[in-house]
């Protein structure tokens, strides 16, 4: 390809119709082929981890739920499981089942949403319209069960906040039946629709070795033949009591990722049926202490996008000492550059979308680049503070004597 001397750099993002969240990909193109990709994140850092340290555990639950707009229940459950482990709480079996039901319903809505987005990225908007219409059923069901469409607020330290009544069980089964039919239709479509296969097969290749080496997670890893699923490998909630298969595929491309996610949906419907059948009677919550004792815990949770990891350290007060969130996208993002190697510009949106990215959940810092100078350096907290004081001093305002109680320099 070296007989195309001019390299065109095109900016995909931070604002671009292909991206649902702000992030930046600078693409060097030779003709239609990608020469190099430079990724930059940090456009949507919200300081949630820091915010958690300043709030009580109960408040944190609702804050952590807002890490992600799609797998909200994953984050709140991973967090609350860690807190319960520190406090030594055993939640009632019924609460475990209810949490698992909501978790699996969330997987249904997340995977259907992803399929629609994938369709949109390859210009197949009809698929987007169909899947999102079907997804509405599970959204309505979740609203019925929890009172909310996205941030369910079901979890509380020591159990769940709402019970699933006997009348709601047939509603769940009805939605599961109807969506199973639809999913079969989409699997059939994915296996037979020519233009769709043309756009997905062989795109975004990631070998099994690379998938392991780059630390990919969830469906992205399973589509490269890595047999890894936290629900089976390190069971939590009610997963030890249900039967399911971990779906893997060895296409190693975007097409494989579609097959894995659709296969997972079929497994999820079977899990939901078992859960609804086996759900035990009893309390839905145990009394939890307001102050969580000293200690630390690490919880793993198979979110729709991959393994979600939360670390919590308690210090005997009602606020945590430290909360650390590792969203699944962070594990998958390193593989995107590998997948894009030698690809086409046209495949870029679907390759990025195929890891089902959630960049806002991943952002942990803000980088500011001075475009005029091109100067790139990292400033610590002390340095930022000093810079701010100097900046104001130069403008005739001396803040160096100011002391903020509990703040820097106090």
């Amino acid at each position, binding site marked *: 390809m070296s007989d195309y001397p001019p390299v065109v750099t095109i900016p995909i993002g931070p604002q671009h119709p292909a991206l649902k969240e702000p992030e930046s990909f600078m693409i060097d193109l030779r003709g*239609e082929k990608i020469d190099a990709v430079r990724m930059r994140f940090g456009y949507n850092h919200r300081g949630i981890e820091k915010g958690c340290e300043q709030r009580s555990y109960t408040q944190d639950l609702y804050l952590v739920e807002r890490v992600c707009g799609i797998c909200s229940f994953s984050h709140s459950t991973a967090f609350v499981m860690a807190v319960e482990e520190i406090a030594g709480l055993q939640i009632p079996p019924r609460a475990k089942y209810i949490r698992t039901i909501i978790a699996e319903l969330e997987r249904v809505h997340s995977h259907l949403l992803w399929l629609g987005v994938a369709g*949109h990225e390859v210009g197949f908007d*009809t698929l987007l319209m169909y899947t999102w219409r079907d997804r509405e059923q599970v959204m309505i069901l979740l609203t019925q069960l929890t009172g909310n469409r996205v941030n369910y607020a079901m979890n509380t330290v020591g159990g769940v906040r709402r019970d699933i009544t006997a009348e709601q069980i047939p509603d769940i089964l009805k939605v599961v039946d109807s969506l199973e039919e639809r999913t079969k239709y989409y699997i059939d479509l994915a296996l037979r629709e020519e233009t769709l296969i043309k756009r997905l097969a062989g795109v975004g290749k990631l070998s099994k070795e690379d998938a392991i080496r780059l630390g990919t997670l969830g469906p992205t890893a399973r589509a490269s033949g890595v047999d890894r699923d936290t629900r089976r490998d390190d069971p939590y909630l009610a997963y030890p009591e249900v039967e399911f298969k971990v779906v893997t595929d060895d296409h190693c491309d975007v097409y494989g990722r579609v097959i894995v996610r659709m296969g997972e949906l079929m497994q999820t419907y079977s899990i939901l049926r078992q859960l609804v059948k086996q759900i035990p009677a009893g309390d839905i919550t145990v009394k939890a202490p307001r102050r969580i004792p000293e200690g630390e815990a690490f919880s793993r949770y198979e979110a729709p996008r991959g393994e979600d990891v939360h670390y919590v350290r308690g210090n005997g007060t009602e606020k945590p000492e430290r909360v650390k969130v590792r969203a699944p996208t962070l594990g998958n993002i390193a593989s995107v550059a590998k997948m894009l190697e030698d690809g086409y510009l046209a495949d870029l949106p679907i390759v990025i979308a195929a890891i089902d990215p959630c960049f806002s959940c991943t952002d942990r810092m803000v980088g500011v680049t001075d475009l005029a100078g091109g100067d790139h350096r990292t400033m610590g907290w002390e340095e930022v503070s000093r810079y701010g004081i100097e900046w104001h001093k130069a403008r005739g305002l001396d803040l160096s004597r100011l002391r903020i109680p509990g703040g820097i320099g106090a």
Partner: protein
Amino acid sequence: MSALLAALNILVFPGLVFVLVLGLAGQFVDRKLHARLQNRVGPPWFQPVADLFKLLGKEAVVPEEADRRMFVMAPVFALAAAIAAFLYVPLWNARPVFSFDYDLVVVLYLLLIPTLTFFLGGWYSRSVFSTIGAVRSITQLFAYEIPLLVGLLSPALLADTWSISGMAAFYQAHPWYWLVNLIGFGVCLVSLLGKLERVPFDAPEAETEIVAGSFTEYSGRYLALFRMAVDTEAIVASSLMAAVFLPFGLGLPAWLGFLVYLAKVGAILFALALLRTVFARLRIDQIVDFCWRWVAPIAFLQVIIDLVAKEFLPR
């Protein structure tokens, strides 16, 4: 008096005003059908008009880097060429407003101009997205234009005339001969999707990759003109295909013939909407590959069929 009549023909009917109204109606039909096929509600009937007036009223920004003259002229040329082509296409009888030998070639030439203006407008916008969209437009032109030309010329071979009205008259005299050209009709439908830059051939304006391709930097009235040009192009090309491939009902009284004409154009618009609903967008290399491997050979097959038919069918 004839100058006045010609002016009336060009400006009102079946020229500017008529084709603009028909273009907007066509856009509505396409959007509504597309929406219904996707299980959506779709826009109300006046939506294309509302969109047009909204765009006309908005600020039109010309990028500082852009070549101002080319940037502004491109949409005007696109619309003018599409409307001019309409004057040579017969609607409900075998007589268009203007007609001469070889006018089929002129219409095809005029229909080529909008694509060239997409390229020029995008190229002179000087934005990376526009530039890539422009290059893709011109690449795609080489993919679909030959099959489209060959597909449209093969009925002319059978009729042994290169004038559209002559062809219409020939097929009117031999009512069932149009069945010979059905393959060519399919080829032209597919090529037309490429010309109108619709899914699966919408790589030149692929939203998720290059924003809006050539039209990325366009806004306000210039964008309105470009959109109008695309709508008009759809109507002109559909009318041309109706005249060439579906030449029946031409001897009817004017009002009935007009309804038959609308039904034909509606059917072609429906086929276009259906095709763009059921496919995913192809990559530009896949488009070129598909057009040359499948569409072009099938178009040449149609030529052979017509040459054979010309020998053996009674004239």
